[in-house]
Structure formats: structure tokens, C-alpha cells
């Protein structure tokens, strides 16, 4: 097991390094932050001067080595726009993203899994039909639209919830629902499919034959066996929720790293983008390793071997 984890971590480091390099090259080739920083009446000489002060006139290879040199000392560099350490900026935004992802996950799992179970056990029933309508809606309405609709209905018209902000529990509700809707649908569909799969198996019939009701069989045996694919999805979804909140964060003025990423990419604030990329790839890798470990706990038949 230790060997397995070590192996996975090594793979992860290589993957993260690759991502960093690609992002570095793409960001540097596609534009120069100097042009975005100067007032528009700046002359060519002034721009050249600022560019050289900021070090962007050096060959990209030199800049890259310089950056890696900093990384080796855990120095992530300073934001060009804000003139403060890039790591500090990202870390100050991270709690908001985690908070929102957690809220969305609660919505997604809390509604998605029970909905999936009901849809599987009540196949063809009226409840299943209503739920599948909800699931399809959650999956197909784009988040920028659902976000604005929520704001319009619950914020402006009914005045139940704050229209934007991040201070308290109330302001978390709408972004969590809007962000969690897509994951909720994924959870519901996955749960439904894996339970239907399991329901056809012998042990279910055996259980029913022993006189257990369907819900008892599902609760005691099926859920556990159906959970492996759901755990895989959960691991991927956590990554998605952390990285994919860009639009929701913008609509609700939620100060997480999604909004920061967009702003930093637009202003070519290279070093901030790099830290975010580093962080997100780390989260993806970490959640997939964790998911593997959880498999073993849930289903001892699975062995982590190469």
C-alpha cells in the first residue's frame, strides 16, 4: 500500500510538472502583461522600459528556469498586478472556494443520492418521473442562467436571500444550489444506474426470499455494493467543484479562486495563474488517490496492486 501511494505521488509530481510547463509556455506566448498595465497613452519606449523592469524582455527559457529556481525554494513569486506574493493571494481566496464546494457537495449528495435511490426503486412511478425531470433540468440549465434566475426570484423579487456577497450562511445558499445542480444530476444518475445493476443480482433475490422488503435490501446490502462507482464520481466531482466554480463565483461575486483565475488570466498575471494551476492539479491528484484508498475500505475485495 505504501509503495502504491508512493508510486501515485510520483506520477502526480510528473503530471503537475507537465501542466505547469504547458501553462507557463501558453501564457507567455499569448500576450504580455505590460501592455495591459500601462496607461493607453504610453509610448513604445515606456512600455519597453517597464517590460524590462518586470523581466519580460528576457528569453522565455531564462524566465522559465528563473521560475523553477524560485519554486525549488518554495518561492512562488509576486503578482505583477497587485505586487504581493502570489501564494498569499491564492491562499486568501481558497477558504471561499472550499466553503462553496462543500456547500455544493452537500446539495449534490444530499439530494442526488436519495433521488437516485428513489428513481431506481420506483422505476416507472410518478415520483421517479418527477425526479428525473428535476435531474434533467439540473443537468441541462447552464449555471450562468440558473444563477441569475435564482438571484432574480429569491433575491430581487421575493427578497429572501442576499443577491451577492460571501459573509454569512444565507449568502451561501443560492451559489451552492446553482453550483451543486450539475453534480447533483450526475450523482442521481450514477446512483440510479448502479442500484439498478445491483438489483438484478442473486443476493438481492436471496434477500427478498428471506422476507426482507425491497427498502431493507437496498439499505442493508445494495447501497454498499453500488457505492464504488459513486465514490469514483465523488472524487472527480470534488475536483470539478473546486475548479469549475468560475461562472458561479462571478455571478454571485463570490471571491473564490475561480473568479481569481479568470481575472488573473485576463490581466496575464502569470504567477498567480501558476499557483492556481498548481493547486488545482494537486487537488485532482489528491482526490483520485483518496478515492482509491476509500475503495479498499468499502470493498475489501479490491487490492491496490500495480
Amino acid at each position, binding site marked *: 500500500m505504501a509503495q502504491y501511494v508512493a508510486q501515485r505521488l510520483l506520477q502526480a509530481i510528473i503530471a503537475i510538472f507537465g501542466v505547469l510547463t504547458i501553462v507557463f509556455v501558453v501564457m507567455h506566448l*499569448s*500576450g*504580455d*502583461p505590460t*501592455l*495591459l*498595465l*500601462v*496607461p*493607453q*497613452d*504610453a*509610448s*513604445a519606449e*515606456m*512600455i519597453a*522600459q*517597464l517590460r524590462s*523592469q*518586470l523581466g519580460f524582455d528576457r528569453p522565455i527559457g531564462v524566465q522559465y528556469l528563473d521560475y523553477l529556481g524560485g519554486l525549488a525554494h518554495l518561492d512562488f513569486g509576486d503578482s505583477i*498586478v*497587485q*505586487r*504581493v506574493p502570489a501564494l498569499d*493571494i491564492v491562499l*486568501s*481566496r481558497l477558504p471561499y472556494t472550499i466553503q462553496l464546494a462543500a456547500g455544493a457537495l452537500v446539495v449534490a449528495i444530499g439530494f442526488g443520492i436519495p433521488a437516485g435511490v428513489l428513481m431506481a426503486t420506483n422505476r416507472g412511478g410518478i415520483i421517479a418521473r418527477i425526479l428525473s425531470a428535476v435531474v434533467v433540468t439540473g443537468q441541462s440549465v447552464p449555471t450562468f442562467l440558473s444563477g*441569475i434566475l435564482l*438571484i*432574480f426570484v429569491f*433575491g*430581487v423579487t421575493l*427578497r429572501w436571500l*442576499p*443577491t*451577492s*456577497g*460571501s459573509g454569512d450562511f444565507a449568502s451561501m445558499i443560492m451559489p451552492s444550489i446553482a453550483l451543486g445542480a450539475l453534480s447533483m444530476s450526475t450523482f442521481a444518475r450514477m446512483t440510479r444506474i448502479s442500484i439498478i445493476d445491483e438489483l438484478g443480482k442473486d443476493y438481492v433475490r436471496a434477500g427478498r426470499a428471506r422476507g426482507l422488503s425491497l427498502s431493507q435490501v437496498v439499505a442493508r446490502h445494495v447501497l454498499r455494493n453500488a457505492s464504488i462507482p459513486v465514490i469514483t464520481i465523488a472524487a472527480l466531482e470534488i475536483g470539478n467543484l473546486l475548479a469549475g466554480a468560475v461562472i458561479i463565483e*462571478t*455571478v*454571485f*461575486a463570490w*471571491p473564490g479562486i475561480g*473568479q*481569481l483565475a479568470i*481575472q488573473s488570466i*485576463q*490581466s*496575464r498575471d502569470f504567477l498567480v495563474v501558476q499557483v492556481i494551476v498548481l493547486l488545482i492539479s494537486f487537488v485532482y491528484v489528491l482526490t483520485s488517490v483518496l478515492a482509491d484508498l476509500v475503495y479498499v475500505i468499502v470493498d475489501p475485495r479490491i487490492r491496490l496492486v500495480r
Partner: protein
Amino acid sequence: MKFALALIAASAISLVASTASAQTKETLTIDLPNDAATLDPHLQWNTDSYSIYRNIFDNLITRDASGTIVPQIATSWKYLDDTTIEFKIRDDVTFQDGSKLTAEDVAFSIKRIVDPALKSPQLSQFDQIKSAEVTDPVTVKITTKSAYPALLAQLVKLSIVPKAYVEKVGNQEFNQKPMGSGPYKLTEWKKGIETDLEAYGSYWRGKPPFQKVVFRAVPDVSTRIADLKTGKADLIRDVPPDQASSIKDGSSTQLFSGPTERVGYLYINAESGPTKDVRVRQAIAYAIDKQGLVDALLEGYGAAVNVVGAEPVFGYTDKVAGYDYDPEKAKALIKEAGAEGATLEFLTSPAYSRALVEAMQQMLNDVGFKVDIASSDQATFLKRRQGDAANAGSLAFGAWSCACQDADGIIFPLFRSGSIWAKYKNDKYDALVDEARSILDETKRKELYAQAYEILRQDVPGLGLYQVYALYGAAKKLKWEPTANEALFVMDMSWQQ
């Protein structure tokens, strides 16, 4: 029992609080599209940053509501010769830590912003300044490299920072905890969320109108409007024209619209591609229905212009005739130039209204061009637009303001050959704008700009489209008059009961 007492106490407090807030407005909340990039006023110069930090600092000089340059920290100034100007400084101003603002701080501020070591993006606006020296405790002498008529207009943007404090805490710390002599001091900067300011009690111009001001970062315009309608925000910036009427007619909201010095213009590449032919450029000028753009896309919040400039700008002239909308003339010119069906590449980025670009595409296609829109992100757009003429497309839309209200800040960078924006060369034009930026005589300068504008009319390296109106949404009780330079001074606002 204890609980009941607490309840009574709490309701009493809330009663007091609610009656107090009915009398005065304690906190003004302003929604901006973004957070400030820096609060050090000598670093970033973008609207979101200076909307906030200019409330923390005072400027050497400023503009009044009519746009005239008036004293602020300086009481008066006079030219000793063409390159030397002497400023007298107020001696009743204190910084927010109680220390006195002196001529030393003014000289320090100027030297700081032009010091290459600070790497200030604003350096280009002040790089004509050679030196600043203190001649006595209330006098500062500024020397420029040559006679520089736009100096005062640029100094309107110079915030005065406290020398002793900046030297004590260093540049990095000063950006995090800025301190100035302005009406508001920083209480907390929650990066990316909001910036909280509190009134500075001993402000020299009197008591600021609100005890607290909160600037929030709300990137999405629909959300800013929702905030305004629910009272979460009292003032919002950047209202799109198509949303203006819902705010104007709102029961608790009002619309502030003000003409600005910003001008929407169409750049036309005079050095490369089909637009190298002056007849093609003139045809484009005849093909654009400026009034149509203002009426249909800006909902009337704009004014068609005759030149690349607007009325609040020094050097603007109404003597030069603009191009009237005349598609037949355009077609004739295209035929004469043999440019029927010529492909014109229209560069743009998400920073500019897509609808506006498409409307112009349609107008140009109607007279026989084939316009291709090339949209990219802003950094890539600028790289092409400011780069080599051969790769700079045929057309691009822009909305230009130098925040200096001087033609030197508009048509010099846009069309003087050698400037990064210019894809045009005319020696006579170059000589005119060069002379106009090196003499101080205002009448003569106006004449030179009138001649320069006439040349631009004939050569059409760019076409002035309309004067931009700034649109703000506000709570009904807020009293304020937006200015032409798009400044956002809370000190100029008040709350009506």
C-alpha cells in the same frame, strides 16, 4: 428573567439604531466591477483601483465640476519660465496619522512616481518631469524636460503620499496599508471582496458625507443591478445602456448619466491592406451611421462627434466638419478605388461591445465591403493592434480617454507616427502635434489642433464616432454629479433625507 432583560436591552438598542439610521446614512456601499489592484496610488492606474484610492488621498490639483483645473493641495502655481513651474502648498493639511503635509511630501510623491525602481505603470504620464525640489516649507518647484503644456492636466492624477510613513513601512507595506491626507482612511482591505473606508475626522475640507464607505467587487453586471434594486448597494458603476431604463424607472433607484471626455472611435489602418487607399478610408467614414449607433445601441446615452475628441477636451474643435452618413458616396468612392468586395479585418476583444462591432460590420457590408471580425482576448488584441502595421488588421473599435482632457493625450498617441497605436504617417500632421505639445500658449495650441484635426479629416486614419456617457445606477436619495473624467469622489456626494 435574564433572557427577558437581554431581549428588552437588545430591542432597545435596535430601536436606537434604527432611529439613528433614519436620520443619517451611516454607510455608503458602492459596487465596482473589480477589486482594486493596488491601493498604492503610485502603482496601478485602472478605474477600479483609482475609484477607491483617490478617496484615501488628496491630489496636488484637481478639476471642479465644470472641468477647470483648480487647487487642492496646491493653493496656486505660476510658471517661472517655460520649463519651470512653482507650486505653493497648503499648510493646514494633515495626514491620517495626524502628521502635517508639507512641501517635502509633495516633492517626494513626484520623485517617487518617476523613480524607475518603483516600476510604476503610470510613469509614462509623468516622465516629462525632470525634477521636483522644495524651495521653502510651502513651495515646490517642478522642472520639465522641455516646455510641457499637459503638465497640469497630468498632475491632476498625482496623489500626495506621506514621505515619512512610506519610508518607514516600505513600498510593499504601504500598498497593503495605505495612508494619505484624503477624506477617508482605510479600515480593512478584504482582497477580492471589499474595501472598507472610514471618514477621517480632521479632514481639511470638512466632515466627509458618510461615516463609512464600502467598495465591493461584483464582476457581473446583472448582480450589481440586483444589489442596487434590493438596497444592498447604493451606487453601481458601468451600467450597460440597455439596462439603463429599468434603473431610471425604478421606484428606489435613479440613473446618473454624464458626458465624459472619452470618445468612441474607429481605427482605420492607413499603412497596410485595402485601407491603405485614402478613398477606401473615406468610404468607410461615409458608410458609418454614427447617430444610428448612438440611438440604437447606446439608447441615446452618447453624442455623435465630428472628430476624434469631445467637447470637454482642450483642443477639441467644432470647426472641422465631420463625415455625414452617405452610403451612396461611400459606394462611389469604393468603385473609384476598385475596392468592391475588399476584405477588411475588424479586430476586437471582449472588452468592447460586440453589438457595436457587428452593427458597424453590417453598415460596411451594406456598401460593398466584406468585413471579418477577429475577436481575441485583450492581451492578444493589444499585441496585434499596437504591433506591426501589416498584422494590425484594417479596423478596430476603441473608447479612448487619457483622463487629462487634452488633445495631446488623444490624437498624439493615436496618430503621431512612431506611436504604438499609429498606423499612419503624415509629416505635416506630426509637425503640428509636436509643436502643440511643446508650447504653453493656449490660443496657439488650439489653432494647431484645429489644423491637425483638419488633416485627420482628410486622411481618416481614424474616425470619431461618439462621446461616451458614463452610466451609474444609484439609490434615489444619493445626490451626486458625475464628472467628465469619470472620477468617483465620495466627498462630492451626499444623502438626501
